[in-house]
């Protein structure tokens, strides 16, 4: 309906701009400028684990994305186009991922893929998406694989990568706990590896032990006892939420009580709390074990109920009428959807797939949104947020311990963010200028 109105009111001018070169400004009509885009709709696709071991938590992300797109659609959509969001289950299995993404691209004919979740899963489809020229925006993983503009010009990361997170954590620990004997508790893949590499830039002398676990093996007693035996009194974990719960329970059994620091991925208090209750068969009923645990944050979540963005997400969630409560995973999905709307607006009125990529490269670093730090997007860099802050968990809330710290990969310096965090626009919907 809204689209029809826009189309008729704008029909007076322009129109003949069939060059396919993208937006003709405000005066042109809406056209079906590329695959997946029509006069009044735009189709986006995604893959998530909706079933299987990775589903708890992660399966909530698409409901957040959907809720925000519903909100934007109810307010007229983007350039008069309604956003159609198609997401499919891959059960965190790369074979399924490639199958559903094939389907999204070849059968559903989406304009772009967004928010694809997981390192091994999404890694299965980047080559295909890049060879087909499908924009592959805002991957839900902090791997550094997505920042490769030479080989993968259509792929963009979104969240801060694990290396810069490791650096920021490392510097904070070195400055605030100079006497701590640090033990690393790492997932045995690039997540643990990149995080460890970043932290070691600052903590090389303080680290007394490094233990890795293999995802899927639920017995972490050998690792935790080894950390205890090495005399570590400060444990830095780059692990997923279930291993936060397992490491807490194991330490409790061993009578081991170090200071814990979990990186952002493994620290959602609500999910960890429910996992603790399940793993301990009810002996522990909430996240109280996590009180005083340190972690990092890069977007506001439900632990900051007074934040304006959280309030916006709350409003969007209630209006969407879906079941369940707003969670950090849904806030994550909404933040990604917000960035996606910014990208679509910047790409102009009648964008092609290449226009969308150009928009992220050219305008992405300027976008103001829920993220505490700016994006690092440019023609040479496809990495997401540039920084985060360190906080302490208190019950299901948290308190901030540092200002927002920004940095880049390698030996780039860590500095305080220059900009104040942005407030959401009155309407709750971004308003970006087209790049052309």
């Amino acid at each position, binding site marked *: 309906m809204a689209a029809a109105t826009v189309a008729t009111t704008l029909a007076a001018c322009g129109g003949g701009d069939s060059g396919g070169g993208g937006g003709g400004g405000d005066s042109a009509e809406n056209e079906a400028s590329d695959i997946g885009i029509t006069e009044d709709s735009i189709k986006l696709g995604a893959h998530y684990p909706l079933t299987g071991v990775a589903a708890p938590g992660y399966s909530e992300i698409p409901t957040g994305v959907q809720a925000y797109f519903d909100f934007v659609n109810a307010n007229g959509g983007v350039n008069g186009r309604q956003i159609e969001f198609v997401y*499919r*289950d891959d059960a965190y*299995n790369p074979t399924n991922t490639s199958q559903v993404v*094939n*389907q999204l691209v070849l059968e559903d004919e989406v304009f772009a893929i967004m928010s694809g979740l997981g390192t091994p899963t999404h890694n299965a489809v980047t*080559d*295909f998406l890049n*060879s087909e020229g499908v924009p592959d925006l805002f991957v839900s993983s902090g791997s550094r694989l997505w920042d490769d503009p030479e080989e993968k010009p259509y792929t963009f990361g979104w969240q801060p990568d694990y290396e810069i997170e490791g650096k920021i954590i490392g510097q904070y620990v070195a400055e605030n706990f100079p006497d701590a004997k640090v033990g690393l508790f790492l997932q045995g893949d*690039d997540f643990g590896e990149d995080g460890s590499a970043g932290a070691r830039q600052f903590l090389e002398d303080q680290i007394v032990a490094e233990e890795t676990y*293999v995802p899927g093996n639920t017995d972490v007693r050998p690792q935790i006892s080894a950390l205890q035996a090495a005399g570590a009194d400060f444990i830095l974990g780059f692990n997923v939420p279930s291993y936060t719960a397992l490491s807490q329970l194991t330490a409790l059994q061993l009578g081991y009580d170090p200071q814990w620091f979990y990186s952002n991925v493994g620290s959602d208090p609500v999910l960890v709390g429910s996992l603790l209750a399940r793993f301990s068969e009810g002996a522990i009923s909430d996240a109280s074990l996590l009180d005083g645990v340190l972690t990092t944050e890069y977007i506001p979540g439900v632990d900051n109920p007074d934040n304006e963005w959280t309030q916006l997400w709350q409003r969007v969630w209630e209006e969407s009428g879906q079941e369940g409560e707003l969670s950090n995973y849904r806030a994550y999905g909404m933040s990604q959807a917000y960035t996606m709307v910014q990208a679509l607006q910047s790409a102009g009125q009648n964008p092609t797939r290449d226009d969308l990529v150009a928009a992220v490269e050219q305008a992405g670093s300027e976008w103001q949104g829920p993220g505490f730090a700016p994006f690092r997007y440019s023609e040479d860099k496809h990495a997401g947020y540039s920084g985060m802050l360190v906080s302490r968990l208190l019950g299901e809330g948290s308190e901030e311990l540092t200002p927002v710290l920004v940095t880049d990969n390698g030996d780039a310096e860590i500095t305080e963010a220059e900009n104040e965090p942005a407030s959401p626009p009155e309407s709750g919907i971004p308003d970006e200028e087209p790049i052309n």
Partner: protein
Amino acid sequence: MSDLQTPASSPAAGAATSEAPSTATAASNASSAQAAGGRTFLPRNTLLRHLLVLVLCAVGAVILLESTDLGFNAQIGYVAFYAIAAGGLTLLTGLNGQISLGHGALMAVGAYTTALLLDVEEPLPLIVIFLAAVALTSVVGAIVGVAAARLHGPYLAGATLALAVGLPGLALYFRSFLGGEQGLTVSSPDRPDWFVEGIRTLSGNSASGVKWIAYIAVACLLITYFLLANLMRSRVGRTWRAVRDQEVAAELAGINLGTWRVLAFLVSAAAAGLAGAVLALVVRLTAPTAFTIVLSLSLLTAIVIGGLGSLLGALIGSALLVFLPRVLRDAGESLDMDAAQAAEISYVVYGVILVLVMLFAPAGLVGSIRLAWMKQRARRAGARTGG
């Protein structure tokens, strides 16, 4: 696992009973050649008959691939690699009576071999890479087979289960070489010019990378099934059936049980290796999460639903693996479920179908149809002689 009615564990076919071919493996016993006496347009010679079927299937496959869109072409690739692996497994389980929960891991061997050999400046011809994947997997399969030949039923399942659980872990252990959790990306092989030209003259479709891979997958499937079908109808196949149905009788007839069991495992592993190689091309990535126990169990369900011991059954079961979840999911979504519910319901319905097949058609789809057909023929023959 006892629900699977593997000949080795089901009382109807165990070594203790002389009641040869069990219902569960009915699909593997009736050969189209046994249409002897009946009217048939197919040649009597097995090789000729299979060649004819191969050519017909190839023509049919080309028609199918060219009359459907690219998305369907891509799905065919998935059906093909499941079907190749299921074909090998159905030979092992249906013909020789051994169960394997480790075929997912054997596929991983083929897939990683392919990924590593393709990941060089000047890769070898694809056919050489595929043969290398098959050869290496056969070696692994033969080693497993030597251990497996001494085991039965649940013990064999347990031993091969260990393979399925353990082998993908190697990719995490040798992370720098095998890529760890995030896996190895597989570079797509270039399309040859003759293929692009051929498709253009044939149907006018553009020959994209997806189509090329679909053709490779289908070609591998047809060749594998041709070879397996010949093997099953030969002396080798009969010996395997003898080993399955009556160990003592087979041994008295001079058959060395162990050797033949290892051979069955080797052939079956070779098929799994080729399936892994095709999977690597189709999925474009080999990562340990793709080769979990779930993959091995999917293959087993495919051959059980289709009919143990039947290649056609393995193909049908594989097609169900790929298309049924989609159909169910779309049905769920059209009933206004959200995507997560629709994804969950597809597993439930799949499970229900499996249970129903076990209860009402324990010989699988193909086996049941064959049984019904044979019964009817017997009745007709009986009526003729009686009347």
